[in-house]
């Protein structure tokens, strides 16, 4: 109980530092634009960025909704497929040896470049962005699921087996719970990647979404609008991150490392 309180206090302190830094940064931004007379088309004042965001709040919220929707569909599919392929790898050495090198190599290459080809295959709509978000997020989940299942010792499996547990039961009651913390770590990474995937996917052709807002503002040279979209993207990513952390605390409550 005492340690829990201490962790809570430390967490609050950390959050307070971050919030203070955020406020300080915002003030510094506002002050710099006023003091140094920085022109609007280089760095607009934070107040005018926020004003622009507020005026266009309906459009901005719509863009956030579209992009988030694409990213989440892809992320959920990615988690499901990633966990399943992690389980498949853990139960077949040959499959693991055949495919895992490619999974690992795929993390070292700009796989997002395939986005252009995905758009050709799946069209301009939600599906293509969801597919990009899917394949970006499922790699880390698959690798961490395998690593997590490998954490289980042979003795533990042997013990459950002597009690007559089936393979499915061992997987469900022992291996997956052990693998949950690394899986959640992967989901945190995957959520960020899914968002990036959806945004970059929108650059290749879309009519709605954060990526479209960013691109349109760039072509129209509207720096204030651009900053509003950047802040919205940051807020969306941060919200997604903390949503995953909250979910982890709820589901894998016995081990939470942020």
């Amino acid at each position, binding site marked *: 109980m005492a340690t829990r309180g201490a962790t809570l206090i430390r967490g609050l302190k950390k959050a307070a530092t971050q919030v203070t830094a*955020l406020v300080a940064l915002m003030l510094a931004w506002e002050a710099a634009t006023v003091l140094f007379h920085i022109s609007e*088309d280089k760095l607009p004042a934070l107040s005018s960025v926020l004003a622009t965001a507020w005026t266009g709040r309906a459009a901005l919220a719509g863009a956030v909704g579209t992009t988030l929707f694409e990213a989440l569909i892809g992320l959920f599919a990615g988690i499901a497929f990633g966990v399943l392929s992690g389980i498949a790898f853990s139960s077949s050495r040959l499959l693991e040896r055949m495919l895992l090198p490619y999974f690992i190599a795929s993390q070292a290459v*700009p796989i997002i470049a395939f986005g252009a080809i995905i758009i050709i295959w799946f069209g301009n709509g939600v599906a293509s962005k969801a597919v990009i978000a899917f394949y970006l997020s499922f790699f880390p989940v698959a690798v961490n699921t395998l690593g997590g299942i490998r954490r289980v010792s042979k003795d533990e499996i042997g013990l459950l087996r002597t009690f007559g547990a089936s393979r499915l039961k061992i997987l469900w009651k022992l291996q997956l719970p052990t693998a949950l913390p690394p899986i959640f770590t992967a989901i945190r990474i995957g959520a960020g990647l899914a968002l990036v995937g959806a945004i970059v996917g929108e650059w*290749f052709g879309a009519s709605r979404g954060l990526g479209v807002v960013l691109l349109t503002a*760039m072509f129209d040279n509207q720096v204030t609008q651009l900053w509003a979209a950047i802040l919205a993207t940051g807020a969306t*990513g941060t919200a997604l991150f903390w949503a995953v952390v909250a979910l982890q605390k709820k589901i894998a409550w016995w081990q939470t490392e942020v």
Partner: protein
Amino acid sequence: MSSELVDAQASGRGENAIWRRWYVLVWPPLLAAVILLTGWELTIWWFKLPNFILPSPAEIVEAALQEPRRLLTDTSATVVEALVGYLAGSVLGLGLAIFFVTFGRIERLILPVYVTINSVPMVAYGPLAIILLGIGPSSKILLILIAVSYQVLINALAGLRSCDPGAIALLRTFGANRRTILLKLRLPGAMPAIMLGMRVAVVHAMILAVVLEMLGARAGLGWSVYKSTQMMNFVEAWVAVGASVIVSLIIYAIVNGIGRKLVWW
């Protein structure tokens, strides 16, 4: 049985084991590659896919060899952006980490700012960088520098901090000053963490270079991908995608190799 004989036998088995290990590790991925390539060709042949949906591997290689000079220009443009940003970012990240460890106060001022800037996905700054710095390489290099330095900074800080306080106290009793402690104890201890950060960062650098070029560039693999899809020249897009994959793997392998040399323990 003399001990020499046992040794010889053991080493013989050792060699055999190494060979077996290679065999076991190499053939399954090769098999997967063969299955993939055959499946690829068969799919095209069976469904009679036009090459704008899926060109065959042979077609892609042929297209790549047709204009080797342009491919080389694009590849080198991307690699230069990625490497310049990566090297500068690594130096900055490592420098900041050492600075923070030496002067603790400043960290509390600068680190939260860094965290805040990096809480926005770096690609979202892309359009802004293009407006402010133009479509040349500098816009890409700046964003790569920010992303890489953050990654290296976080890992290096964790590594430098993980040092055993007892060891520091021991060196201090021997009269070691701060610099000696940093050079002889903290930095070597932090090397594995730093190398991990630099390995992750080199991947980020290549990804960012390719993705940012898609927004606009004079040359580069990402630019080539974007341009060829807009012009419906899909084989060309596959060439650029393939080149970026191969180049990334090579760069990653090099960084990995250097890391193994430096962190041999």
